[in-house]
């Protein structure tokens, strides 16, 4: 039958073409496997920097201050937890070109792949920026210290302080808690005496930083490039879990996240919570529009039986530099890095986050405190400064996204009225599973 015959010919032709194209692809794509160690290049001085929208003023301030350096500023997607950036860098490595010379990482987790063996983008700054690094409290720049090398610079410090509504506390005669346990009890008491008032947010990706990191719970305990310790049965995790459970059972916390649009209404009912230093200006003042003179920050909470406060950390961006450049281009990129990390033109005049670089912190505090927004203004800024030293170490940024996993497991459980326990065990399972898919060996002790 001719009809069938001609179809068979078509199939044969297509197959031949397919095989031919395969051979072509096989030869064309063979160098695709190479990674990392390309030769360093020098553009002769011109640099390209990638910044997320809030960091555009930093790059512009640099261009103003250094007109002699030809700088190409590229604004990138600033979504925290976005996957596009990773994808682009994987492709740059395949192409062997295209990397920016310096970058502000939109997510802190980005530093994990940027320093990992596959992408290996971020340069070792230990020697090249030694004098700048002297100005950093090692606790503040800890996220950048990877296998004893400094691979990035912290833009701003973002330790949690303890926030409370000073007006509400004064009116009702409550005293500000000093320990995490007192915080849990008081939160439940307030929720019972003033229904609708809340003492925390549990639904955002920073919630595990706020409660689990603050307790030293090993979710991100990096042992080496390929090994991590995850153990949610550790006593430090259990006490944080019990605290959150107490808040949930007592209707004392919102299941929303701080960035949810709906949180703007719930935020006005917030009476106290651990929260990052940037909550003050960004959340309370600009986003939720809480009146001046209401909120105050104080020293982070202490766990029962411990002598020092212990607190989490929410964000606090990182600057990285390319390891693929040399000569004049590298010199200019280093100038850029030093500027954005240390120069008052950005770190004091423009940024709203507490500078990571120590020597400019006082000038920033002086400028910010002039607005007199907080109820206990001086004490609040004092708390800002000391909080960074209370953040437990042994918490690295990993290829898996702990906050993202929290948002996908605990949040839906709470939002659909399930128990916190159900969400917690899903969180633990997913954490281990995700870590394994990235190739980590997971230890549990």
């Amino acid at each position, binding site marked *: 039958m001719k009809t069938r015959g001609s179809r068979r010919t078509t199939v044969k032709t297509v197959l031949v073409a397919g095989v031919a194209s395969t051979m072509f692809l096989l030869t064309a794509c063979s160098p695709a496997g190479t990674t990392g160690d390309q030769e360093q290049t020098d553009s002769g001085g011109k640099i390209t920097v990638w910044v997320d929208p809030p960091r555009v003023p930093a790059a512009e301030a640099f261009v103003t201050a250094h007109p002699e350096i030809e700088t190409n500023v590229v604004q990138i997607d600033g979504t925290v937890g976005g996957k596009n950036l990773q994808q682009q860098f994987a492709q740059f490595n395949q192409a062997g070109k295209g990397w920016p010379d310096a970058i502000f990482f939109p997510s802190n987790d980005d530093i994990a792949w940027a320093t990992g063996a596959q992408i290996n983008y971020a340069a070792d700054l230990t020697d090249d920026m030694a004098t700048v690094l002297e100005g950093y409290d090692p606790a503040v720049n800890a996220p950048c210290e990877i296998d004893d090398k400094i691979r990035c610079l912290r833009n701003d410090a973002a330790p949690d302080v303890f926030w409370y509504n000073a007006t509400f506390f004064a009116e009702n005669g409550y005293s500000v808690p000093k320990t995490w346990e007192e915080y849990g009890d008081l939160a439940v008491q307030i929720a019972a005496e003033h229904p609708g008032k809340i003492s925390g947010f549990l639904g955002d990706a920073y919630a595990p930083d706020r409660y689990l990191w603050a307790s030293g719970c090993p979710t991100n305990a990096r042992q080496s*490039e390929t090994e991590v310790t995850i153990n949610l049965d550790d006593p430090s995790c259990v006490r944080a879990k019990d605290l959150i459970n107490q808040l949930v059972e007592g209707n004392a916390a919102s299941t929303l996240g701080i960035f*949810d649009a*709906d949180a703007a209404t719930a935020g006005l009912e917030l009476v106290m919570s651990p929260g990052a230093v940037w909550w003050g200006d960004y959340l309370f003042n600009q986003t939720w529009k809480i009146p001046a003179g209401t909120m105050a920050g104080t020293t982070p909470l202490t766990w029962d039986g411990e002598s020092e406060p212990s607190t989490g950390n929410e964000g606090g961006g990182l600057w990285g530099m390319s390891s693929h450049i040399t000569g004049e281009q590298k010199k200019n990129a280093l100038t850029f890095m030093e500027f954005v990390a240390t120069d008052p033109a950005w770190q004091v005049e423009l940024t709203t986050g507490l500078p990571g670089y120590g020597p400019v912190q006082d000038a920033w505090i002086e400028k910010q405190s002039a607005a007199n927004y907080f109820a206990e203004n001086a004490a609040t800024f004092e708390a800002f400064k000391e909080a960074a030293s209370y953040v437990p170490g042994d918490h690295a940024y990993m290829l898996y996204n702990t906050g993202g996993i929290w948002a996908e497991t605990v949040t839906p459980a709470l939002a659909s009225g399930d128990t916190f326990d159900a969400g917690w065990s899903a969180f633990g399972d997913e954490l281990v599973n995700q870590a394994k898919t990235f190739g980590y060996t997971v230890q549990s002790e």
Partner: protein
Amino acid sequence: MTSSTIAPDRARPARSAGTAQPSRKHGQLHRSEARGAWTLLAPYSVLLLVAGIIPVVYALVTAMQTPPTPLNPTVSFGGVQSFITVVSDFRFLQTFINIFSVIIVWLPIMLLGIVGLALLVHASPGRFGGTMRFIYYIPGALAGIANFVLWVYLLNPAQSPIQGFLNAIGLDTIKAVVASPANLPVILAGMLFFQGVGTWIVIVNGGLNGIADEVLEAAAIDGANAWNLTWHIKLPMIRPWIGYAALMNLAYGFQLFLEPYLLDQVASNALPDQWSPNQLGYAFAFSNFNFPAAAAMSLILLVMTLAIGLLIVFRSGIFGEEER
């Protein structure tokens, strides 16, 4: 073979009435006709090669490699290892369960909606039927994203016109609406239904229009009322179209990506990033840098949708190949 079609794949839907046309002598094809067939086929073949065959072969080659890892950054031949990686991944089964939970809600509603509304449109002659057909088509004419934004307004208790209903069933925030695992299949079913139903009504309506007037007249003369006509004449005759609609929509369901991906953003990341099989493939590629596994995942999906496609071509009867 009673039909005179040359290339079965490209044939327009054969008249189901099956009026026997004078058929050419079995299989005789003139050379000029063959040339014409090749000319018609050529643009499609080029497209198929560039956008179909080559990517599939490339995926096959990639899937047979080992992924570079921090410990072993070189690429070598890995056999079926990446398929094992995909199938044994802890999310693999769950993504298909997720998809099925949507399909089970959506597909029956979709088919009842398509067939029911198409029959109603067909039974309403003149301007009214045409107007209704146009109205049903409107939601499908909105591009995917526009349709999606409308849904976000509808689902967000802070802005929704059905705010009262949402609050009455205890949903106060968009997160509570979207993030509860039990709600998602219903939401997606609704989105997919309104997005697709209009187009399918037009297609099935086309099938109904293909029924010869003489058949309907003859039935009417025999005393069939509108209900008899629908049940005993129209429905059996458009059965191939219904099968076609069912399988095409099933294949579409397997490839869900955009809707769960965007709903996740609306719900402040409260949905799993790897909710559907396609999203899992995306995660293999761009979160785990495991391109072989991503290629293997897409090949698994390809086999499934290809099987559905072959079923449509050879079993639905809509391409007029089978013996009558």
